[in-house]
């Protein structure tokens, strides 16, 4: 009986991983100057699902996330080897010198909410205007839609001209998510989106992630295993081995949490490391 469930879960895993893969990395290596940060990461991120990246501090989770939208370009002296494929394209080779097209397709939300010091309205209008939406009516409707999607419209719909900095931390983070969504990306990267929020705001964001995965591919880095259990469909565990981050296990969340393959995963999930 056990063997049969194992076998079916294995088949399911094969199925889902051979199905719609949105992003996939092949032998990805990242180094800052001479210091290697990531080595040989082969990760497949299924589309329209939540992939949680877990692992201890210093295991390269955030660095990995930054490779996916080329935020790594900002630090000089980073070198990337291997490839990151988004759909058909290799994001480093095919998209060449210009990461802007890529970042329209791959949005990002940061650990600390970082709204611009503008009004709520302008926070959302600025990226839209920059990408060519000038019509006032169109702006209004897109902004309202984005705010409704993150559940902010009911809370702040009547004071869009107030500074975004007057919002609470959780509201600011949802505003940042809305701001990433107005550009209609395919993928949303979230770097520990709840780590600076209180439990209620965290719950709110997690619910939001659950709703958004129907339309977007979501990659969320988290320290919080309980959170990964709650939101993730797929899990990838990174580990720091000899100062370099490696991917040691990946798969559907249920399988990884119940039958981890790697012994480090077992001990990490049990909180022994």
């Amino acid at each position: 009986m056990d063997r049969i469930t194992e076998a079916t879960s294995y088949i399911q895993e094969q199925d889902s991983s051979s199905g719609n893969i949105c992003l996939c990395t092949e032998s990805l290596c990242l180094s800052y100057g001479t210091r290697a940060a990531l080595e040989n990461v082969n990760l497949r991120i299924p589309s329209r699902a939540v992939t949680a990246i877990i692992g201890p501090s210093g295991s390269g989770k955030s660095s990995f996330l930054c490779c996916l939208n080329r935020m790594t370009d900002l630090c000089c002296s980073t070198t990337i080897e291997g490839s990151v494929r988004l759909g058909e394209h290799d994001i480093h080779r095919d998209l060449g010198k210009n990461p802007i097209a890529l970042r329209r397709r791959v949005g990002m939300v940061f650990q600390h909410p970082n709204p611009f010091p503008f009004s709520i309205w302008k926070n959302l209008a600025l990226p839209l205007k920059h990408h060519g939406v000038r019509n006032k009516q169109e702006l209004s409707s897109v902004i309202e839609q984005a705010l409704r999607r993150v559940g902010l419209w009911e809370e702040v719909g009547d004071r869009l001209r107030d500074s975004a900095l007057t919002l609470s931390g959780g509201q600011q983070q949802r505003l940042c998510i809305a701001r990433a969504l107005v550009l209609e990306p395919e993928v949303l990267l979230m770097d520990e989106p709840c780590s600076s929020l209180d439990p209620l705001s965290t719950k709110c964001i997690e619910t939001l992630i659950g709703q958004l995965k129907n339309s977007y591919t979501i990659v969320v880095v988290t320290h919080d295993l309980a959170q990964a259990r709650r939101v993730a469909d797929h899990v990838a565990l990174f580990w720091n081995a000899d100062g370099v981050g490696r991917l040691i296990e990946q798969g559907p969340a249920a399988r990884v949490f119940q039958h981890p393959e790697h012994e480090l995963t077992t001990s990490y999930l049990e909180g022994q490391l």
Partner: protein
Amino acid sequence: MNLSFRINSNIDSNRVASLIGLRNGQLWDLLFSAAVWGSVLIVAMVFLWLVGDVLIRGVSAVSWDFLVSPVIDSGRSGGIAPVLVSTACIVAVALAVAFPLALASAILIAEFLPRTGTVSRLVVASFDVLAGMPSIVFGLFGNALFNQLLGFGYSLLSGGLTLACMVLPFMIKANVDGLRAVPRSYREAGDALAMSRTSTLWHVLLPAALPGIIAGVLLGMGRALAETAALLFTSGYVTRMPESLMDSGRTISIHIYDLAMNVAGGDRMAYASALILVVLLILINTAVVRLGDWIQRRSLRA
């Protein structure tokens, strides 16, 4: 010496403290507060004395006529109209030249050059040296370059350009500080939203850095208004009303210097001019700060 003093005073303070019914720590708190407040009081007194002195001695000579009349008898009578016009021209030239250069340099240094790179360090070091240069050296340099080599002669233009060179390092420093004070997360947010760096800079970073930029303008303007040495060699000290930027003219600071040092019986008018200068500085400061607030509110809100 110092140590023994402290030990002695400790013993004494114990005795004094117990005499007046305080614990030792409380006495020190009291003395420390007194020292801090005393220092503030001294500084405030110096400022008040200075302003009061200028006000009392100068106010009797100040009138509307004083502001709009030509300089007569080397400044012993008449007014300071041409001096005010020359001052305005020189400061305007200096700011018009220095501000764009300073802002552009600051953007390069703060946003594009790696902070610890050789180029950045060299550029910043050279600005620091320039900032420490005595203004008389700028005067000689301006005279050699603008008056003679470029043939502008003793003129408001030469003076303004020389002042521009002089205030440039201060303005650059203020602008760089202003830009560096903008949180890195704004830049990351701009990049993650697929905005170009220029667009992030223009729409987000510059408005956010506006307080530093305003401070730079004020600092530059203050120094330009106060300058005498660098201008003696470049704009000259003619008291006529200037007809173009190629005319020679004296700023209000030079006028004060000249009245105080070279004109017997010019004291009263020197004080009157100084009063005008102080009032002018206060007005300009307030106006520029208000303007900055307004621009920032507008660009942040809309």
